[in-house]
């Protein structure tokens, strides 16, 4: 099978991967780089479980062509914690507010929240709901997730 070599940064580190033209970024992250934090929930960009940041923007990695990632900076959920492994304030808020049940949507939720808070440090509840509308959760009913994002926003803005 024809392979194309792409070079990009993942969580601050250089990565070089030979990809097939039809592969998506999720496959490269999960299967080639063993970054299994991003999940596949639908494979069609509807559930948001595969959300990662590409150049700071939240994207559905299951729809994102791997070749497009060439030269990009990609952040996955594994890249959020501090150097000593301490949780990012968004991750900590999710843990403390009960926003994690089955956890399958959590990595994507956390990254969508990160993209939002990088853009809008103190979003309104409406802005949070809109920013997370592409990330489905079937366990929590969203209320504790929204609370977590609000708590994280406050902490990060302090």
């Amino acid at each position, binding site marked *: 099978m024809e392979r194309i070599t792409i070079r990009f940064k993942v969580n601050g580190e250089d990565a070089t991967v030979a990809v097939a033209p039809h592969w998506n970024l999720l496959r490269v992250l999960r299967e080639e780089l063993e970054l*299994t934090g991003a999940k*596949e929930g639908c494979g*069609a960009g*509807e559930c948001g*479980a595969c959300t990662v940041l590409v150049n700071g923007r939240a994207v559905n990695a299951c729809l994102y062509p791997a070749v497009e990632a060439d030269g990009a900076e990609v952040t996955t959920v594994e890249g959020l914690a501090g150097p000593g492994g301490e949780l990012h304030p968004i991750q900590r808020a999710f843990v403390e507010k009960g926003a994690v*049940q089955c*956890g*399958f949507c959590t990595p994507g939720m956390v990254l969508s929240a990160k993209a939002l808070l990088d853009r809008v440090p103190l979003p309104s509840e409406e802005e949070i709901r809109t920013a997370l509308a592409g990330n*489905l959760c079937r366990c929590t009913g*969203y209320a504790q997730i929204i609370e977590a994002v609000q708590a994280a926003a406050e902490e990060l803005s302090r």
Partner: protein
Amino acid sequence: MAEKTFRVVGTSVTRKDAPLKARGEALYADDIRLPLMLHARVKRADVGHARILRIDTSKAEALPGVKAVVVGEEAPIPYGIVPQMPTEYALAYKKVRYHGEPVAAVAAVDPDTAEKALDLIEVEYEPLPVYTDPKEAMAPDAVKIHEESPFPANIAYQAEQEFGDVDRAFAESHYVLEKTFRTSYVNHAFLEPHSAVAKFDTNGELTIWSGTQVPHYLHRTLSKVLEMPMQKIHVKVPKVGGGFGGKGEVSNNELIAALLARKAGRPVKLTYSRKEVFLQHRGRHPIEIRMKIGVDRDGYIQALEYDGTMDGGAYGGWGVVILFYTAAMLHLPYKVKNVRFRGRRVYTNKPTCGAMRGLGGVQPRFAMESLLDQIAIDLGMSPYEIKKKNAIDQTHETVSGVYVRHSEYKQCIDKVVENSGYLEKHRKLPFGRGVGLAGGYYISGTAYTLYMSYKPHSTATVRVDTEAGVTVYCGATDIGQGSDMVLGMMAAEKLGLPFDQIHVVSGDTTLAPFDLGSFASRVTVAAGTAVCQACDRVLEKIFSVAAVQLGCRAQQLAVADGEIYSVFEPHKKRMGFWEAVERYIDANGPLVASGEFTPPRRTGKFKGANIGHSPTYGFTAQVAEVEVDTETGEIRVVNYWEAGDCGQAINPQSVEGQVEGSIVMGMGQALFEQVRVAEDGRLLNPNLHDYKVPTAADLPQIRTHIVDSYDPDSPFGAKESGEGPIQPVIPAILNAIYDAIGVRFTEMPVTPEKVLEALERRKSERS
């Protein structure tokens, strides 16, 4: 009431799995990768009902990279979660019964190769008529989907129950109302698709990692279908990305992965696509319900009659159990003296229905709470009044013999009405805005295993070790609901240690002692009791040693904050927990004890009498406030109140999460969700774009309230909170829609089109 000063129970501790999940390091089945692991894909039928004449896999087998191909004939032993009625096969055997049913499967070195091989498999069918509607399937001349079924036409099972003198009670009723309700075909839409990794070792032992709610039933089924002893099978449950009942029975992917792994001699992973999740289905049964309720002049219920036709889909699954749950659910949470039930489950050529959160309760609850709402309004009474009047007391025995040992349902109704301002709002809000009240309940476990057995339903072993610390071993399965946390909290409370010192080993048929699984909201009470008993037995052992050291009676000792002390002289006679553990082990060896839980075996002398009994029950009452846009027909649930009786909340934050999740899931079924099926049995929307589940943007303001409650016979007074709260959601919302626009919807989902149509009809009727 028992002593309620707890140190761990009742606090919102942080779940231990949450940081792992938030960092992306928690492993789900699809995250597992073993050396030389193969990837499997499934060839699915493109016909809805047919005899299989021929399957030719030779070209697929010849494709480089393909390591094994299996077909139904290689595993012709039928299975089912109800073992007396096995109807399903790992892969379609001789017949295809729904469009998309697995007919062959391939294991290859990579997913692309496996995918390519599917196209090389040739299947020849003899088509049969496709039935997507139970009415067509029940026609006397319909072709039988399951030839061996003993019931006429395509009825999978049917039953009748009658209590009291129903006809007389109706004749003597002051007011009788009857309506027909139709519920929709909905899917759990858990976020993690089914996934399993199977591996055979050189000794012929099988290890399977699967995101299941029922490792025990998977264990049994693998043994049956693969014809190998259970001792040679090890089921391990990694993190599970939600279940809601959908992973509460064996899924084909688990059996296929194991069959392929055995044939290929290499580990095999089979993860389903989202479309395949919809085909595996096991979602809520659509039921056409005719319900009739008679009341006296004051609104007291005199009689209730139910007739339900359940669309079961292609296979048995949990079907017969759910049929009897729809019967059992009629008897609570109101006092009903005369009840007639007639129900049937019908096979159709569609993905199989099964267990979904609150199974058997949600559909009759919808009918009953809607009818009571209308009856109250017709009698010029508040729906609050009629529900409060008929609500059961703190203890209650139904005419069907179900015993409720503890209920705070009346408190739930009062509290939710107070918190929501229901009485000030109902029938008083402007056109387009309304409130609706509904109540509900659910079992906290079952009374019987699905196969004949007298063994305990839950067992747990607690090991306390100077090096390894405290470990709770229990077969219960954490599917994301937080059962590991609940069991760990209970052990921490019992042993007087901090929660973070307790390790829980669960969801493993080899390491952990027996538990039936995560379904029927059974884990907190059943596994919780087993863990508490094991802890008590551990303490008995430690106290025997501590008593000698402290010079007092073992019965006079208690433990808290890591110290063992005499209840009479707490300051004088005390020693460290771990010091006592060390002394015990020095003198006696390992410190281990087990506990168990066996529910009371209540039953009756009628068909289905075993079903509906539970050690205890959870209750809930809810008020929805909706806004209907009369221009677009769009309904928005703006506010939502809940008051729930879950006994003592072990972790209030988790209870809140269960309740909010239930409300939003119920709202999805009320307003958006429906799997659509074409005439040939093909699913029209097996994806999360066209099958709409609620998003963060749809979320109402939810205010939950845990009422003061404590079941003295439950571990730490606790009851269920994961399935009761979904029961009243649909009628609460639909009652609110009635209050808003005066239209009584008896069918879901209530889409904008249906609202506009109804408003139009209403307008033309008036003019």
